């Protein structure tokens, strides 16, 4: 938990979703929306191809926080806004900065960026510290 002081950055999380991740996430989560798993359908509705589940990307934002805080039970709250779309086989970077520390709670402003676009923005995490 060292280093979670106001103004300090949490360790960056970098992840490159492989081309099959949406199938695994669909099975794990139960979200079989065809825009994530059917290339042809995705193109028919005007997308460049299958896109990531927003909640998969949110799980990467959550993982950056729990790894910074030292365990899953320390993440008490996470709110995000989804923007644009997440693409397969392109690196995503989750970064965050501690905004404030009060009453044992660290508040982190965090974003997920891919190819210069913030695909998750205005996200805010609360981490419990001892």
């Amino acid at each position, binding site marked *: 938990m060292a280093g979670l002081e106001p103004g300090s950055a949490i360790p960056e999380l970098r*992840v490159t979703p492989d081309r099959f*991740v949406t199938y*695994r*996430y669909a*099975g*794990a*989560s*139960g*979200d079989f929306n065809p825009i994530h798993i059917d290339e042809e359908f995705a193109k028919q*509705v005007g997308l460049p191809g299958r896109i990531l589940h*927003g*909640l*998969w990307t*949110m*799980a*990467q934002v*959550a*993982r950056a926080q*729990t790894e910074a805080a030292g*365990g*899953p*039970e320390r*993440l*008490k*709250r*996470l*709110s*995000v*806004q*989804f923007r644009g779309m997440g693409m397969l086989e392109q690196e995503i970077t989750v970064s965050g900065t501690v905004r404030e520390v009060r009453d044992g709670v660290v508040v982190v402003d965090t974003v997920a960026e891919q190819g210069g676009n913030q695909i998750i923005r205005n996200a805010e995490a609360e981490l419990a510290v001892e």
Partner: protein
Amino acid sequence: LPVKTEAIGKTYPPVVYAVGREKIKEYAAAVGETNPIHLDPEAARGAGHGDVVAPPMFAVVYSAPAMGPAIMDPEVGINLPTMVHGGQEFAWGRPVVAGDEITTTASVKEIYERDGRGFYVFETTSTNQDGETVCSGTWTNIVRGV
């Protein structure tokens, strides 16, 4: 066309989800979680938990089934093909572990229109078998061209 707002406050039947070890493992693999407390019962017990711990975002797995009927409800009136997931918030209480039975209730929190888009905000509350709240969710869906 203004959005219909009569469904605000409506609550849907609770959905019970039994949390399993292998499902936690499957979910952890899908999102890239490698912390052994999600995968190995001994590691989880060593860290003071009763069994393997669900990653926080596993909340999607146990609470989304309660959201289905709310999103599909004709009284809410979402035009599904034009709906996008605009925002999501979860607040977590006691960690969920394998063997827990989680009951989730969904309700309609807000429906409003802004800049020609409809905002449909739902809430879920998930409690474990001991009646403790394990997660509260706020789900914001946006429909273009209402």
